[in-house]
């Protein structure tokens, strides 16, 4: 059912701004026909990564290709098969919603007016509404509609749900799912909203300080990352293969391990103190990777200690 071809491929992709690296030696393949969620802190390199894919930023080293063509030399034909929603839903405030359609129709041969109209009505935007006067959620709807109606094969969205209320967020997720259901359509979305990732994504890619930490099917990721609770405060845990996070709270230690094998489990069970495994939520699993070591323990304990 899933066509396993590659929509996006990067090899050793690296970007420096001055002496700071934004993306480091990133090699990955994003399969066609699936939804991939790109997750990471602010400043992790998500936007830079996306801009390089689209040929809007030049890699310092390495290469990337989209729909089989090098991103730096994309032909207009290939470009017209890519839909891109930049961060912040850039639209011209002086236009009316229907002018957006006229504008896009001139540029994109496969413009689907019916789809655009139905997106407008789904988000409750009248065709005569001035873009400068509609709500932020409606702006997201217009911008998603104007991109989806160009009938792209691949849709790339940079934090589209930023600042949206729950109703608009849900509408956005529904719109994206409707797009993804069509045969062979690929979605790459960067977001911080892990509930939306669970609803939307086939795959998850975790980016931290420009490094790709995880690139896996979402279900595999959830199964491969495992939590352990220990009824004792263990400040410096012994060498545990696959340990990615260790935190102590109030007489308890929470460990998180990735891809636990027999050796991992044996070395945790040796610690004793009622060591027991638990299935983590997606949020806990992602935080175990992304949270810096400085944020150990609970913030309330640190604040109390400071008084």
């Amino acid at each position, binding site marked *: 059912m899933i066509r396993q071809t590659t929509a996006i491929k990067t090899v050793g992709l690296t970007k420096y701004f001055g002496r700071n690296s934004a993306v480091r030696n990133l090699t990955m393949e994003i399969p066609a026909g699936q939804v991939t969620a790109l997750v990471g802190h602010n400043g992790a390199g998500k936007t830079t990564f996306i801009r390089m894919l689209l040929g809007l930023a030049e890699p310092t080293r390495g290469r990337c290709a989209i729909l089989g063509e090098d991103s730096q030399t994309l032909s207009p034909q290939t470009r017209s098969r890519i839909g891109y929603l930049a961060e912040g839903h850039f639209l011209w405030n002086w236009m009316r919603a229907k002018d957006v359609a006229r504008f896009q129709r001139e540029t994109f041969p496969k413009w689907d007016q019916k789809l655009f109209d139905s997106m407008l009505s789904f988000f409750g935007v009248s065709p005569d509404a001035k873009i400068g006067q509609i709500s932020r959620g409606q702006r997201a709807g217009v911008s998603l509609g104007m991109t989806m109606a160009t009938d792209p094969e691949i849709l790339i969205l940079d934090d589209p749900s930023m600042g949206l209320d729950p109703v608009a967020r849900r509408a956005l*997720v529904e719109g994206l799912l409707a797009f993804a*259901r069509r045969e062979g359509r690929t979605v790459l979305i960067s977001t911080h909203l892990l509930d939306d990732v669970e609803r*939307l994504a086939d795959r998850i890619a975790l980016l931290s300080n420009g490094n790709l930490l995880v690139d896996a099917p979402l*279900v595999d990721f959830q199964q491969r990352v495992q939590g352990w609770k220990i009824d004792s405060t263990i400040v410096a845990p012994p060498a545990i293969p696959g340990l990615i996070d260790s935190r102590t709270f109030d007489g308890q230690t929470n460990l998180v391990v990735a891809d636990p094998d027999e050796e991992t489990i044996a070395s945790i069970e040796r610690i004793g103190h009622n060591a027991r495994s638990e*299935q983590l939520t*997606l949020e806990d699993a992602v935080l175990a990777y992304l949270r810096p070591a400085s944020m150990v323990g609970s913030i309330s304990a640190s604040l109390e200690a400071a008084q």
Partner: protein
Amino acid sequence: MIEFKITPGGNRPIYQQVVDQVRAAIVSGELSIGDPLPSVRGLAQQLVVNHNTVAKAFAELVRDGTLESRQGRGVFVAKRRNVFSASERKRRMSQALDVFLAEMHALDCSADQIQEAVASRLDQLTGK
């Protein structure tokens, strides 16, 4: 038809929640042998989740013999049959028990309390 309800943010992946709910509906008699399940597309739309997630849940239930897929007509509750070898069945049972007992242990339940709770739940499910 069963009312599915999924919650993102929990410690069970969404596809697993769908699998759990189908199994629970069969145990409780809400779904009987031969009953149709909703289409993958329809259920995905209703739950607002990726259609591959629903497809994965159904595929797992077809693989373990809970559901059967009929060419072009969708997915139905299958006749109960043992698709696993005796040893595989035992392995799966013990795996499920481990998870269950760990939960009970964390809740500080005694052996008697666990046995009583299981027996009363079984009675309830079989309508005694």
